[in-house]
Each structure stands twice: as C-alpha cells, then as structure tokens.
C-alpha cells in the first residue's frame, strides 16, 4: 500500500534561509520578530544574522559545522539560528528547560560539536561542555563591527540545517539530522497548500527541544510574516492566550496536549481569540478528539484545525488532515490524512512487503522529507533508514515504528507504536531511557516503566521499583529523577515491588505490570 503525495518541483537550491533573505530584500521594513515588547524588521534581523555568520566564520566554524544553541526564546535566538544557517552550519537545540544533567548527557552524544551559543541565563547549564561557549551579550561590540551583508557561503539542499534529539530504543537519545532540502520541502508544502503568506504571523508555543518547534520557528520567516516569541522559559498558557489576542497572530503549531490547554482556556475564559485564528497545526501524539470537537464546531469558529502526523527523522510532518472532515461514528480514530508534497507513505508487513488497503502495517516514509539519519553512532535505530524495492526500483524509506492503515478513501490512520516508545504531552519517550535513569539511583536495584491512561485520556507513566535495600521513598526518587530527566519523562506514579515479573523469554513482562496497575488501587 502506497499513499503518494503530490509531486511539486523545488528550486534548484532548496535552502531555507535563502527564502528569508529574499523577504529581507523584498519587504525590508516588515516586522520579522517580536519578543518582550521589542521587535526587528526583516532588514535588521538579516543584518544581525549576517554579522553572527561572519563571527562564526572568523572563529573557523565553517560549512558543515554543528553549533549547539542553548538559549531561551528571544530575538537573539533567531539571530543565532539564521546566522548558523548562513554560515553553512547546522544548529542543535539544547533546551534550557532541561536539567543540567540531561544536557550533559545530550552533549556527550554530539560528535564534533564546534561551539555552543549561550546567554548569561543559560551558560551555567552547559558548563560541562568541552567546546567554546559563545555569549552574544559579551560580543556586542565585536559583532557590530562585522559586515551586515549576506555572506558568500555556498549551501545546498544536501547540507544539514538542524539536528534534534529524539528517543532511541536502547535508552540513549538519538540525534537525528535534517537537510535543507527536507526542511524546504516541508515549509514549501505547508505555505503553498495552506496559502500562508506575509500575513501568517505565528506564535511559538512549544519547547525549543521539540522537532515541531524548528518549523514553528522558521515558518513565518519563510513566508515573510512576523514571528512572535514568548519571554518565558516554560510554556505559559495565560501569556500565550493574551498574546494571541493582542497581536494579529494567525497561525500556531503545537502538540495536541497544548491545543487542549488553549481550548480549555478559551472555553473557561469565554473568549474567541483561538477560534479566530487561521490555522492550528497540531499532532505528535494520539488525539483525544472529544477534547476539541465541541469547541471546534461552535458557531463562529473559523479556525482550520490541521491534524498532522510525522517524525523528527523526516522533517517532522508527513501527512495532514483537516479536522472539519472528521465524522464521529465513521472514524474511531481521527485520521492524519494524506502525505505532503514529494512525500509518500508506505504501509508494510514484517518482511517490508506492502500490505493492502485497510490492512494494518508499519508506517514508512519515503520521498524528499526523509532526513539524513542519526549523527550519534550506529545503534540498531540506524537500520530504520533502509531501502526497499518498489516496482523493481530502489526506494529509500524510514521505518517509523508506528502502526497504522489506510482507509478506502485514502486517509492514513495511526494506531500506535510497535515498540516501547510512547508520547507524553507531545514528547517522544523511550521507556528504557527512564528505566536506565532510575537504575542509576542509589536506592533502586531494578526498574520498569509502564504506560497507563488518566481518566481524561492522557498518557501517564508508572514506574515499578525493586529497592536495593530499604524501601526507596517515592518522593526521594522523584526528586532525584527531576534532576536527571526532562519533566515529561518523570513518571506520575512510583510503586515498590519485590521483583519484576518476567515473560517466558526472560524479559520484563509489561503486560503483567499493567494488570497489577489495573487491579490494585494506587497509593495517594
């Protein structure tokens, strides 16, 4: 079963920042970015980004380099990202909302990192790095003396533009790289298909480390519109909702769980700000359609809700579905729709042979959105990028590890994972990654994490702990884990168990643990 996307030609050099530069030339006085009451025009942002690119060049960080970015949302963040791209380099987001220990682990996974850009507020978090740390605040004079003109650096569609961390399958996060061609193809699809233009002002509401934040950051600059950033390290619903109302913001990209928060806010506050947006592009985790449907169908709601599916390994979005087409009763699960431009969805069985319409299979992605692969090592995940024969010709695909099927009218339905990965509040998590962190704690001999659901349908993690000696105090384990892992990875509940049940193959029997969860009342 192949679900083909529309074929749309791309420019000979599909390089994302060239689009931004073209807008800087065509509409230099348009506002490019707003943050904390400050703003820069396209001309100003372009000039500052050029100066930063020149600084990188001066320091020898040339085409092909990888530069970490550990900054809070700010105007400087866009200056830095565009400057890195202009230098021909790729950026790696290092989310300052992560604990220092987690950032240290991530830094250890980036081979050949050239430098890290930080600010006085974040520098401490990347103290462990062995590479130079660049602080813009200390370099203002030096930057001002550098040329404001576009640097003469050759960049092609094959060059890497960014790399983000995503869950692996062995407890070590994977650094997955995206090429300019992949990113350009995505932004070109979204802007042409949904007619995003210089009025399509955007607000970023997702965490910097998420793959979806990369397109949310670049989409308005690709279209000539204004990017609005929040002066907040953590997602702030009150501030977001207020900014949506105060400015002429038209588009928001977010995880499904963030959409619920914004919808709940609008319903509780009796507003209509969200309803009047042009688009919310959302997805990244199983949708509880009931959480948004009543709001979406209210009279006067003119916001188009695009329910999307994709993976970080393939430029983040592969398919899109206008939720207005959702029919209760007809669809058990809300579809994620059809592929984007130059992107195909293949559904295959275990032998990588195509399954038929309606049959369940593994979702694979092919076409110009398939990324460059993992930069850290050759773990078992690398085999997910593979080649299959289609009508006698080789086709490079990425096996997502997601299960799904295609309906009779050509819509993709995603059913869930084939392995132990799970999405919690939009973040893709490998349970082994959490189990490893738990296993490192002094009071824990062994740990297993299982996935349950709350009454309102949200994914929730429970950790079963085998104590090393005296029973570990739950609060203590949680507090220690919060220092080691991003908050979404810290389980909601901890249970002490004398030993972990094993399957006949000697692996931890998660099904038995889930039974244990269902049959016993959780301690409060």
């Amino acid at each position, binding site marked *: 079963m192949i679900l083909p996307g529309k074929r749309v030609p791309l420019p000979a050099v599909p390089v994302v920042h060239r689009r931004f530069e073209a807008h800087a030339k065509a509409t230099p006085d348009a506002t490019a970015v707003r943050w904390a009451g400050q703003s820069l025009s396209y001309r100003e942002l372009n000039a500052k980004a050029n100066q930063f690119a020149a600084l990188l060049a001066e320091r020898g960080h040339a085409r092909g380099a990888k530069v970490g970015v550990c900054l809070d949302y700010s105007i400087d963040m866009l200056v830095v990202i565009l400057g890195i791209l202009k230098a021909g380099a790729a950026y790696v987001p290092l989310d300052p909302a992560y604990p220092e220990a987690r950032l240290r682990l991530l830094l250890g996974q980036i081979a050949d990192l050239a430098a890290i850009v930080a600010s006085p507020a974040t520098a401490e978090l990347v103290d462990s790095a062995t590479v130079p740390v660049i602080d813009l605040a200390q370099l203002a004079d030096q930057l001002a003396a550098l040329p404001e003109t576009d640097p003469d650096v050759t960049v092609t569609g094959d060059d890497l533009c960014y790399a983000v961390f995503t869950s692996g399958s062995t407890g070590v996060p994977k650094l997955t790289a995206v090429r300019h061609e992949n990113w350009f193809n995505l932004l070109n699809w979204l802007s042409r298909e949904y007619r995003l233009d210089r009025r399509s002002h955007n607000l970023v509401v997702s965490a910097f480390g998420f793959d979806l934040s990369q397109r949310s950051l670049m989409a308005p600059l690709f279209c000539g519109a204004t990017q609005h950033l929040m002066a*907040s*390290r*953590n*997602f*702030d*619903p*009150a*501030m977001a909702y*207020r900014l949506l109302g105060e400015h002429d913001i038209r588009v928001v990209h977010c995880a499904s*769980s963030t959409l*619920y*928060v914004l919808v*709940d*806010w609008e319903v*509780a*506050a009796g507003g209509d700000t969200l309803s009047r947006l042009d688009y919310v592009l959302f997805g990244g985790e199983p949708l509880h359609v009931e959480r948004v449907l009543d709001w979406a169908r209210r009279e006067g709601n003119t916001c188009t809700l695009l329910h999307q599916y994709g993976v970080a390994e393939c430029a983040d979005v592969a398919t899109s579905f206008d939720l207005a087409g959702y029919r209760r009763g007809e669809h058990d699960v809300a579809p994620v729709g059809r592929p984007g431009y130059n992107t195909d969805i293949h559904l295959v069985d275990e032998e990588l042979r195509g399954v038929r319409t309606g049959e369940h299979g593994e979702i694979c992605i092919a076409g110009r959105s398939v990324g460059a692969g993992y930069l850290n090592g050759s773990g078992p995940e690398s085999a997910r990028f593979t080649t299959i024969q289609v009508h006698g010709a080789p086709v490079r695909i990425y096996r997502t590890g997601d299960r799904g099927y295609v309906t009779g009218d050509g819509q993709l339905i995603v059913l869930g994972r084939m392995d132990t990965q799970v999405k919690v*509040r939009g973040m893709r998590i490998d349970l082994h990654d959490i189990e490893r962190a738990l296993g490192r704690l002094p009071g824990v001999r062994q740990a297993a994490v299982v996935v349950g659901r709350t009454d309102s349908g*949200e994914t929730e993690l429970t950790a079963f702990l085998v104590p090393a000696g005296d029973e570990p105090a739950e*609060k203590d384990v*949680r*507090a220690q884990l*919060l220092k080691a892992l991003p*908050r*979404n990875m*810290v389980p*909601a*509940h901890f249970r002490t168990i004398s030993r972990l049940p094993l399957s006949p193959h000697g692996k931890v029997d998660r099904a038995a643990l889930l039974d244990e969860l269902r049959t016993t009342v959780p301690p*409060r």
Partner: protein
Amino acid sequence: MTDERTVMIAERVHAIWCRELQNDDVAYDDDFFALAGHSLIMAKIQRAFVLEIGVEVPVDQLYRNPTVASISAYIESLQTVAT
C-alpha cells in the same frame, strides 16, 4: 498587608492545588513536582488563579515557586505592588 489577608491567599491557593492535583494531603511546603505535578496541571492552576483570585502568575514564577507557601507569598507581593 494584614496577616489575615496572607492566610486567606494561602488558603485559596491551597484549595486550588488540592483540587487540581486531586490530592487532599498537600502541605504548604510540599513541592509541586514531588506531588506528581506536571505542565498540564500547572496550566489548570494558572487558569484558576486568573479566574478565582484575579491574578495572572507567569508560569516561570510557578516553576520558581513550587510550594503553596512560596507561590502565595509571590501573589501577595504582586498585590502589594498593585495597590
């Protein structure tokens, strides 16, 4: 700022925390995250502060003040400035 007012804010904050965390056993110095709090519950608490107490508390401040006692003191400081 009277002591009575201080007590009143802390009591209302405490009631909101208990409700949103679905936990009646919250002490004034318990840490939000140690009580299994997460970003979605944080959003509900922020909204309740706006709708029920009439203050918009930035989420970054909720993270920096993760106990009933400290966030109540923060809210009080806001209201002192405002009046």
